[in-house]
Each structure stands twice: as C-alpha cells, then as structure tokens.
C-alpha cells in the first residue's frame, strides 16, 4: 500500500516536472531557501529533478508552478504546437510482453472502440533464425512526414513541437494521407455503428486529451501523442497504462524521457542501448525510437487469443 502511494507520488511528480512546462525550479531561490529558514513552508513535499539528473524532495512552496493543471490548448497551440517543446517517444522492446494495456488505455483516452487502434502491438520476426518480439507501434510523428506533404487542404500538419496532428474539422476524407503513410498508422472513421453510438454516449469531455476530434465521421484520425495531457504536464495514456514501463515519453529539448517511473537522459539512453528508428531508409525521420529487444525482461510468449475478431 505504502509502496503504491509512493509510486503514485513519484509518477505525479514526473508527469509534473518533466512535461509541458509542468514545473520550473527557481534555482537560486531554492538554494537560498534550502540553506536558510523558510517562514512559509507548506509542509507538502514535492520531488524535483536537478540539472544533474538527481531526484530530491523539496517543499512545494519552493517550486514555481506555471502552466496550470487546468490548462487547455489554445486555438493556435492546436495548429502550431506547444512552444519550446519537441516531443519524442522511446519504446523499449525488451519490456513489451503484449499485455495490450497501451492499446486499451489509448482507446479509452480517445473514445475509440476496437478494432480501431491508434497504437498497435505487432508480432515481429525479422528473419527465420532471429527471435520474435512484440512491437508496439503508434504514429511515428515523423520529422519528414509523407502524410502531411500530400494533404490537399492542410488538414494534417506538422507542429513546432514535433507532433503530426489532424484537424478533423478541416479533413475532407480523401484518405491520401493514409495512402502516403508507409507505417499504416492512420485510421479512418467510417462511421461504424457501435462507434458512432459510443461517441454519442461519451462526448469528448474536458478529461480527454485530444486536440483533434476522433469522433468526426468521414475523417482521418490517428495517435496524436496526447497533446492535451502534455500541456497539463501528464504523460500519454499508452505510457501510463503500460505495466512494464515499455514506453518512454519526453522532450528532446530537455533531453529526458520518462515512463512515469524511471527517467532517462534521451541521448544517453539511445546511445547506450543502441536505439533505432523503424524503416530509417524511407527517410521519414520518425520521432519514435526503439530500443532493440535484447536482455529481455520476459521470455517471448505467443499471443493466446485473437483480438478484434468482431467486425
């Protein structure tokens, strides 16, 4: 119980401290206050990450909060992105056990029903003699996105924070972006009756993070890196839902990625663990990196059930 509590605290902090302008430490003030007596301590401890990458407990009153938790995305943020950020994802293939919690979390977050999956978990095997592995695959939010190039109406676009977003009020449903995406990461809302009914019952509320409406029939939607969560300083649903901490999310500018429990320096992690990007030869420059499935935490197990059988 206690452990859980701690865990949750730590997660809260990490969500807070690492993402989307969550918390900024006023370095000097902090030092002074830590050294001297502080008259107005709140008694509430908050963990912060120092520049050296160490965690320490400080009083919450010492931390300047900005970008409040209630923050909502402004009109310009939806198209232009969150200033000063450069979102990045790292997926550690050694940790994925195909528990599909990321898929379910994503579906819950985006109000989609199976078989629509913005993040998929695929069984991959590169060659006959090499070992199979599980491969979580979201949208790669490429830096040279083939999908945004072909959009005739600028309904899908690259934002300054690295996210490739879709504006569902603009999309004309030509599906050219889906044809252009070599990773098949995009999904089309064909108006599946169960899905339409579900969206009517569960309209997108404030608790959902989507900047783009995935419920608009006749338009394209896909993984959007949950920018609504990012602006509040929270991690995307697939990251927080994964029981094994497979998916790391962070900011390339801050050089940190976190799965909610562990935090790494992005460059260090990618160099020490030989990170790579899928189909580098296509020149799409994905913002999602993979760590090879070596020294696995679990032995590979074939899937026991077939998912998404239902039409």
């Amino acid at each position: 119980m206690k452990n859980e509590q701690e865990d949750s605290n730590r997660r809260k902090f990490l969500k807070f401290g690492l993402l989307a302008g969550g918390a900024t430490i006023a370095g000097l003030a902090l030092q002074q206050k830590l050294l001297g007596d502080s008259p107005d301590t709140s008694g509430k401890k908050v963990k912060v990450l120092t520049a050296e990458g160490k965690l320490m407990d400080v009083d919450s009153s010492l931390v300047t909060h900005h970008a409040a938790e209630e923050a909502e995305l402004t009109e310009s943020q939806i198209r232009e992105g969150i200033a000063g950020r450069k979102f990045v994802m790292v997926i550690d293939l050694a940790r994925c056990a195909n528990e599909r919690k990321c898929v379910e979390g994503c579906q819950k977050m985006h109000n989609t029903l199976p078989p629509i999956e913005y993040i998929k978990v695929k069984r991959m095997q590169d060659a006959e003699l090499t070992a199979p592995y599980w491969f979580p695959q979201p949208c790669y939010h490429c830096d040279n996105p083939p999908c945004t190039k072909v959009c005739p109406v600028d309904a899908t676009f690259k934002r300054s924070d690295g996210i490739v977003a879709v504006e569902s009020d603009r999309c004309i449903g030509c599906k050219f972006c889906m044809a252009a995406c070599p990773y098949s990461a995009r999904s089309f809302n064909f108006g599946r009756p169960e899905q339409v009914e579900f969206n009517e019952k569960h309209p997108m509320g404030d608790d959902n993070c989507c900047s783009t409406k995935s419920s608009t029939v006749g338009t394209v939607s896909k993984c959007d890196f949950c920018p609504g969560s990012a602006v509040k300083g929270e991690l995307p649903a697939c990251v927080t839902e994964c029981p094994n901490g497979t998916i790391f999310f962070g900011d390339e500018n801050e050089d940190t990625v976190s799965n909610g429990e562990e935090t790494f320096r992005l460059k260090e992690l990618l160099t020490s663990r030989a990170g790579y990007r899928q189909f580098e030869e296509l020149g799409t420059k994905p913002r999602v990196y993979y760590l090879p499935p070596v020294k696995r935490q679990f032995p590979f197990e074939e899937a026991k059930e077939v998912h998404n059988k239902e039409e």
Partner: protein
Amino acid sequence: MSEHKINTEPTTYETFTQEEYMVMKDELLRPVQHIGKWGKVWIGFLVAVCMCGIYAYYIQETKSKYVTVALRDYTMWGVYISNFVFFVALSLIGVLMSAVLKLTNFEWYRPLSRIAEVIAVAAIMLAGVSIVAAMGRPDRLHFLFLHGRIQSPIVWDIIVIMTYIATSMILLFIPLIPSLSTCKNHLHNKPKWQMKMYAWMSFGWEGTAEQWKILKRSIGILTIMVIPLGVSIHTVTAWLFATTLRAEWDSTNFGAYFVSGAFLLGVAGMIVAVFVIRKSYNLENYLTPMHFDKLGRALVLMSFIYIYFNINEYLVPAYKMSGLHANHLLDLFTGEDSTLYWSVVFFGMFVPAIFPLFKPMRKPLPLTIIAVVVVIAAWFKRYLIVIPGLSHPYLPIQDVPDSWRHYSPSLVEMTIVAATFAAMMLIVTLFSRFFPIISVWEVAEGKLEGKDEIINYK
C-alpha cells in the same frame, strides 16, 4: 500504318456532287432526326442504371459507410479510385484518336474525331464523379478551393483535369459549329427549343471564308494544346500513387506506364464505340472496315508499348525481389491475386498484341470482341494497381477483423461503378441524338481534298 498505294490509283471519289453531299448529310443527320424504339429503350435503360447509382450513393451517404462500403483502414482506396484511374485513362482517347492522328495527317481520323472527343469529355467528368464518391466528406469539397495546398498532388490533378475538361469541351464544340448550322437548316419536325438551341449555339455561323479561317486556326491551336494536357492528366494521376512511399507504387516508371496503358485502353474503347455506333446508326459507309483494320493495327502497337512498360514495372523489381517489394509482388505472381493478375496479363496485353496481327482478326466483329476483352481487362488492371498493394503494407496486418484484411467491393460500391459506366454511355448516346456524331463537314472536306483513303479502302 498508312498505305501509300491508295492515293496513286484513280478513284471516282475525287470530288462529289451537291447531290451526294445531300445524301451524306441525310445519312449523318439520321440518328438526330429519328429516334427509334430501341433507341428509346437503350436511353431508358441507361437512365435506370444511373438512378440506381444515385440511390446507392444516397444510401452510402446517409447510412454508416462501415456497413455500406467495404473499405477499411488498410484498403482505404477501393473500386472508386481504380474506377477513377480507369476513366482518366479512357479520356485520353480524345488525345490519341483525334489530336495525334490529325496532326500526323492520318486522314482516317475524320469520322472518328468527334466520337473520341465526346467519350473523352464524358469519361473525364465521370472520373470526377468517382472521386467525389470516394470522399469521406463530400460536403467539404469546397475546402479544396478555400484551403487548397499547391504542394499536394491532388491539387495538381484537379488543376490539370479542370483544364483538360475545358479544353476538350471547346475542342468538341468548335468543330461542332458548322454542324449546328447544318442541323438548323436540315432537321425538321423537331421541337422549337431544339431548333432554337442550334441557332443559339451556332453563334451566327454563315460559313464565310473568314469564319472558316478562324475555325481552322482555333482547332489547330486546341489540337496541339490537348496533347500535353492529356499526357499531364494521366501522368499526374499516376503521381497520386508514385509520390507515396509504398512499395507497390514507388516507381519512376509510373507516369509513362499509366499513359501507355491509357493509349491501349483508348484504342480498345474506340473500337467498341465505333462498332456500336456503326451498327446502331447504320453508318457503314463512314465507319468502314478500313477503320477497324487501322484501329486493329494501332491496338497491336499500343499493346507492345504497354507490355514494354509492364516488364519495366514488374519484372525488373521481381528480378531483385527486395524485401520491401517481395510482399506485394509475390501476392500478384503466386498469391491471392495471382489469378486476376495473370488473366489481366493474358487478356489485357497478350490477346491484343498477338491476335490482331492476323488480318481476319481485324474485321469489325472479331476485333470488337478483342476490344471488349481489353476494356474489361483494363478495368481490372486499374483494380490491381490500386488495391492488392494496400493490403500488403510494409508492417504486417495483424489482429484485425477479416473484412479489414480482404477487400471485396460492396453492392453499393459496384452499383455506383456501374452507374458511372451507364452515365458515360448516356452522355455519348444523348450527344449523338442531338448532334451528328460524325462531323459532316470534316468528312466532306476529306473527300473534297481528294484524300480518299477513307472511301477507297477495300
């Protein structure tokens, strides 16, 4: 392809009398003057199919597309898109059968040019209809003009197709002006509005020397313009596919491959159209076995060109069998789609390349049968270009319902496709019932100039 011997022999057709001209006029105006019972049944049938298509579209747009249409996330482009490619290809018929032949002085183009132009205009319009049917949000069509991005190949395609429609319509209309005047003067017992339409549309044509001069010059300029435009529309249509990173479309060969296929389809389509018009309107004196002979030879030439591009498109990557292409190529050669693939190779390329080499096969009926086979194969060829590759992407398709993995068009989709065909034929039929489908003056001019290749051919 032209036979030089012909002109050296003396003929009785070096010129013709006023009487003969009147006979010709009467014969060519007959389909406009009188619509028989079967003519009406045919129009009624086409209208009925079009209505079914409109109803199917109504169902598609009002009910859930997940239910009415077989498209899913992987095969998100289906028969609407392949049908679009087919119609764009068919519209190149105007370029080949009227412009290219005209500019290279193949005199036998004369009775064919208007037929080709009408089919071209009808086909390109229905290409547009197919695209709208494929759109998820047709209500946002105007966004293309409000928010259009010039960087998108779709916008290039819209620009060239619009230009091609405009040019083809003007090119259809300008040679029609003298014919309109002929209609006005020679048709009788027609409703008043129809006669008024002829009078209004002929813009006071009197046939003065200066009017003829302007007419000929405008036709000359448009004929030259329409060739690069026609090549552009189909090349840009090929680029809709070739500008993506997908293995099945990732080809530098694609534009030329599409254009050569369009020319083959154009010749085949022309043969079918000429046969039907010749039989149903009794125009045997104008659409002669010579035309079938020439079109048969053109079919062979176009087939070999198309085979050449197909070898480049499929055999060269197949020789390398790179990991990225293997998935798609093996599906076509030995996999699920192999029966269709090899049928199209046989009926769509081998048959038109070999059979018309033999003279009896270039007679009207056998050649028309071959042409029908080629047209059907050409439609499936576009299907094979668009769809099988989509269901074989780079990353494997896993954990999806069966309908997501295998695409087969729904009833609604096939009805709409059938309706586009009916609508194309309806446009051509109605045109031929209001305007002479063979240009009276162009044929007459050909005879007057002593270019009697048309008449003299045995």
